[in-house]
């Protein structure tokens, strides 16, 4: 019998993408559950009873202070140790959009140094606008377990929708280590695969960084929304392309496969 892969999709007021994340994991042959942060805080649920943790996008707590700040502060206050154990155990953790912002605020990404220091931020877009569009991304797999289903140099398309997505590293050392270790697994490129400016890089991210994986390869944060493309009929230009595949699922299928193989 196939092993049941349990996925926790973390929710609180203002997180928005839990529904499509749920569907994405369901379509990827796992058993997702949407769990309110409260339940981890008051211990009616335990992190270690799940195999995969997903931080959905949206506007946790309205993103009022700063995107992801309130959610990260609550997690740090109440379940920091549990989460670190989860990560150190090698289990997959992924965040998209607001989820990426939370992971960065928690220091789980890029984590190029020691002990989860905050090494980066996702600052307001250079355009000073919310940007909802489709972007092209260059994939550099590295050892990121979520990218198992892609090949190096593959160009993929995903939707973005955010106003704070400009990746800013703390200093040039952090940036250097990110690049050196190949943690910048997804970068914004133009339709022809080149690194060009706005709007191909929709937010002004340093080094066109769209997604970062930790060194161990089990924590991935991305600004775009793979969970919104679990069906190819939600790609913006599917009416032009007769071929096609459900690109978003590849992220989630990889994680599910990883659990089945390793645990």
């Amino acid at each position: 019998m196939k092993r049941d892969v349990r996925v926790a999709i973390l929710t609180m007021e203002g997180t928005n993408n839990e529904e499509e994340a749920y569907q994405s994991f369901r379509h990827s042959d796992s058993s997702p559950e949407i769990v309110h942060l409260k339940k981890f805080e008051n211990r009616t649920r335990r992190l270690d009873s799940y195999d995969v943790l997903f931080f959905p996008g949206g506007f946790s707590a309205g993103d009022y202070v700063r995107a992801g700040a309130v959610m990260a502060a609550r997690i740090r206050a109440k379940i920091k140790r549990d989460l670190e154990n989860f990560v150190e155990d090698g289990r997959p953790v992924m965040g998209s959009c607001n989820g990426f912002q939370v992971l960065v605020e928690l220091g789980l990404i890029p984590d190029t140094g020691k002990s989860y220091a905050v090494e980066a931020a996702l600052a307001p877009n250079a355009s000073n606008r919310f940007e909802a569009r489709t972007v092209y991304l260059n994939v550099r797999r590295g050892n990121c377990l979520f990218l198992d289903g892609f090949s190096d140099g593959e160009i993929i398309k995903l939707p973005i929708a955010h106003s704070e997505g400009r990746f800013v590293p703390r200093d040039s050392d952090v940036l250097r280590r990110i690049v050196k270790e190949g943690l910048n697994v997804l970068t914004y490129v133009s339709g022809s695969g080149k690194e060009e400016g706005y709007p191909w890089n929709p937010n002004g991210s340093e080094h066109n960084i769209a997604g970062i994986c930790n060194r161990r390869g089990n924590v991935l944060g991305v600004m775009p929304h793979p969970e919104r493309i679990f069906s190819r009929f939600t790609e913006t230009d599917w009416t032009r392309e007769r071929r096609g595949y459900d690109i978003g699922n590849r992220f989630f299928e990889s994680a599910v496969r990883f659990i089945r193989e390793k645990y």
Partner: protein
Amino acid sequence: MVELRITVTLKRTVEDSEGGSVLKALKLLGYDNVKDVRTGKVYFITLTKGSKKTGEEFCEKLLANPVINECVVDG
């Protein structure tokens, strides 16, 4: 050079949901001593010449809506 600090807040009669959200977060972080949080925007503006008066014009023309906002200029 003139340096202005312009603070735009919501009038007391208008509900500040951002403030409410921060209040809730601080309480959840264990700060039971927080009674109230109000939020606002602040603009630090450098003029080659001008006065507080100019700042008040900025409030009126761009930065604030008198129906919901209060605008304070510090020179």
